[in-house]
């Protein structure tokens, strides 16, 4: 192939890529920029989801007990349900992150 063709053939593109990488002109292939800056936020979110669900459930349970004068009963039930809801929240968060990752093309990951 001549070098004049407007579209470089794949082998040229590959060689160019390799040469650029040798010279350190390209960033290494493991670029994980925008997503990974929020990796910290992602982790903190997971923890907060667990606590928030437990808190909400505890308040609902306690409120029901307060209204019905059955103090430990609903609190106990709702704290257990709150734990389940917290785990559900975290599972949803991870499932959503997985599907987001699958949707995006690999180089922007």
């Amino acid at each position, binding site marked *: 192939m001549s070098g004049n063709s407007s579209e470089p053939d794949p082998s040229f593109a590959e060689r160019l890529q390799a040469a650029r990488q040798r010279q350190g002109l390209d960033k290494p292939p493991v670029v994980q920029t925008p997503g990974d800056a*929020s990796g910290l936020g992602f982790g*903190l*979110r997971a923890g907060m989801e667990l*606590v928030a669900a437990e808190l909400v*459930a505890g308040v609902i349970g306690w409120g029901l007990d307060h209204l019905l004068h059955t103090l430990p009963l609903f609190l106990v039930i709702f704290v257990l*349900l709150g734990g*389940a809801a917290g785990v*559900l*929240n975290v599972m949803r968060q991870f499932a*959503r992150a997985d599907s987001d990752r699958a949707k995006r093309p690999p180089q922007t990951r």
Partner: protein
Amino acid sequence: MAQSGGFEMHPLEQFELHSIGGALGHSVNFTQANLFMVIGGLLVLSLLVLGTRARATVPGRFQSLAELLYEFTHSLTIDQIGPEGKKFFPFVFTLFVFVLMGNLLGLIPFTFTYTSHIAITGALALMVILMATIVGLVYHGFGWFSYFVPQGAPVALLPLIVLIEIISYLSRPVSLSMRLFANMMAGHMILVVFASFAVILGSLGAVGILGALIPFAVNIPLIGFELLVALLQAYVFAILTCIYLHDAVHLH
């Protein structure tokens, strides 16, 4: 608390509200939090109005910043919600910029971080969840309540699952508001604690001044970390708003 040479450590004092603006400010309870909300709003408004006034094809500094902010939030909204996201873009943009401004303004010394108060983050989170609920009801009518009934769940377990789903839904505004508030408050408290260490050690004489360099040096990367947290938390707030709106529009 810790006392040395008359200096006391008050990491929580920075979060106290005082009315400002004399008698008028006192009568309407205009606090420094309100002042910085107004400042933040004016800064955003002037950035967007003055920044885009030139309408240059090759944008200048402020136009770039304004366009970047706009496009970043726009793509975030459309990516998360889908084509319907256009309708919610003004809402998400306003929230994002308000939270971002609050977080960033607070990093400047002698300012007040209004996002470090749960009253404010809580109000924002309630607004988000009310918005998502109303949008869900408008889009789907009573069908929206099927959101709490996952598909393919065994009927015997339904009472339990629906309760768990409702708790999960109600926990959203709590986690949304607590995350932002806790992050901002904790960061600013840590900064004050280390700065106070430096002052307390510094008052102990020559050895103390050498020792004071250590907490002082810790504070420098901490400020950088707080900058990261400020941007990150505003981003997380915006993206979660989008996710909740997505659920309201699409039901899963």
